[in-house]
């Protein structure tokens, strides 16, 4: 029953570009892109409960790597994407190692991730070889080998593919021992250890997978938006965008991040349109904050589990 529903959903998503106008298409591309990043974060933050508020760093590393490789060594971003993701995973491993080896949990871990992201941001802003504070610009060539497409719809399908990839990984993890362990680690690490679970190992694994996937997203970001600025791509606002979707949608669930993105991305766009004109910057962040508070208070498991319960009763 569930697989049938999933197949239908995917089919619909595949067919969508045919009926959407250009503007709606961009929205959907963003929805899917953020859903992808959200799902990647979900593996570490949702299932394993290790809240990272510095995931933007992985986007930045991934994006800058492939952009630099493309610009200086003519490496196709399709390859650069993997390299970038690999480097992001290395960074993730470092942060994970430091954090987990030194027993940083909860709030302290959050601080660590934020600190690392900010350090990256400041470093990159100050290194002229990487474009300094102004960042990197990518010349538009429309060449598919350079991960650029004339037709918006190709971007859509790439974003969709990424989302499916991340969701597939999460689904795989969810049903195996790895995933089950993660959910227990989230609840109580000490008890896990007493039951024979090597919590360090599994947390590291989650971190590396999560950061690798997020790093892939960096390349998409770079070659879709054609610019990389350290303040945007390593910054806390991006990290917030990444985490807000799975949290509102339902952290630790498979569809939560996707639902979250479908709800929040249009919302952000709308508020940007509506408020942006009157010069109210960041209004959508206020909405995010309010939503976050409301969800924590009233729907701690997120929107998706809530809806699921509602439909079960019906």
């Amino acid at each position, binding site marked *: 029953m569930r697989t049938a529903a999933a197949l239908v959903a995917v089919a619909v998503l595949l067919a969508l570009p045919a009926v959407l106008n250009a503007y709606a298409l961009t929205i959907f591309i963003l929805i899917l892109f953020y859903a992808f990043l959200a799902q990647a974060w979900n593996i570490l933050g949702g299932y394993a409960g290790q809240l990272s508020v510095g995931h933007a760093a992985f986007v930045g590393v991934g994006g800058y790597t492939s952009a630099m490789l493309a610009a200086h060594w003519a490496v196709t971003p399709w390859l650069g994407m993997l390299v970038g993701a690999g480097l992001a995973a290395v960074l993730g491993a470092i942060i994970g190692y430091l954090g987990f080896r030194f027993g940083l949990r909860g709030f302290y871990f959050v601080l660590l991730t934020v600190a690392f992201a900010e350090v990256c941001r400041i470093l990159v802003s100050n290194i002229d070889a990487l474009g300094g504070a102004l960042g990197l610009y990518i010349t538009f060539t429309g060449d598919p080998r350079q991960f650029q497409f004339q037709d918006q719809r190709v971007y859509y399908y790439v974003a969709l593919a990424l989302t499916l990839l991340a969701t597939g990984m999460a689904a795989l993890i969810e049903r195996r021992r790895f995933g089950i362990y993660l*959910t*227990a680690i989230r609840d109580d690490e000490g008890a896990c250890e*007493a039951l024979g*679970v*090597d919590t360090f190992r599994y947390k590291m694994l989650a971190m590396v997978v999560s950061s690798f996937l997020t790093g892939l997203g960096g390349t998409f970001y770079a070659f879709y938006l054609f610019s990389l600025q350290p303040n945007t791509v390593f910054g806390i606002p991006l990290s917030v965008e990444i985490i807000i979707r799975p949290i509102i949608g339902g952290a630790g669930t498979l569809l939560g991040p996707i639902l979250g993105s479908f709800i929040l991305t249009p919302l952000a766009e709308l508020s940007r349109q509506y408020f942006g004109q009157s010069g109210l910057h960041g209004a959508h962040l206020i909405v995010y904050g309010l939503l976050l508070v409301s969800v924590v208070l009233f729907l701690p498991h997120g929107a998706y589990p809530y809806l699921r319960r509602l439909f079960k009763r019906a």
Partner: protein
Amino acid sequence: MTEPDTASNRPPTLQAVPPLLLEVQSLSKRFGGLQAVKDLSFTVGEGEIVALIGPNGAGKTTAFALISGFLAPDTGRVTFRGRDLAGLKPHRVNALGVARTFQIMRPFPRLTVVRNVMIATLGHHPAPAEAERRARAVLAELSLADKADALAGSLTLAERKRLELARALGTEPALLLLDEVMSGLNEAETERILELVRAINRRGVAILLIEHVMRAVMSLAQRIVVLNHGERIAEGPPEAVAGDPKVIEAYLGNEDVAGAPA
């Protein structure tokens, strides 16, 4: 404490001394100004039931933490099946065959009961389907089968105690460390857990338990080690310990002895 097995040395109340499972030697642990455990030594043999008793603050739970790898001792050694446990993390100690329960219970509240136990069974049975099967079997043995799919956070106190026990069992230990698994239970529930523990022991699992419920200790334990202020002040079969003046003195002034033997 292995003695040569001759007729003249064998204490009349014990059968043949079983092979050593756990050996605690001169264990010491200090926290700031407080000496929690001091020069503690005792052993547990295969299949034995040994009780660790003493007034509150005597260092019993600290001893458990030291044995199971949650704390590192300042001095002394813990050996399990001849293997030195020094520096091993708790999950490794568990893999070797030592399982512990916690005095303040720590179920995984957001997971179902069966999943709680699966965390334990997955250790030896990585395939989730098999792990689930075994988890359900353990739950059945502990009369929790009907609650298998309920959230662990929704269980009653007695059920949670049994869940704690089920989880520890799920790791297929050779030695089970039970930390006050009977506190807070009424007569019937206590009796039930007692029976369960006996049944587990009959299967060959050695038990080291911390308990304040004296009735349970007296009826279960083959040997008792008494701690006070982190030191061992007495050791022996239940009858001997019950009459030991040092033990009685240690408990005088403590109201937490429930049902001390006459």
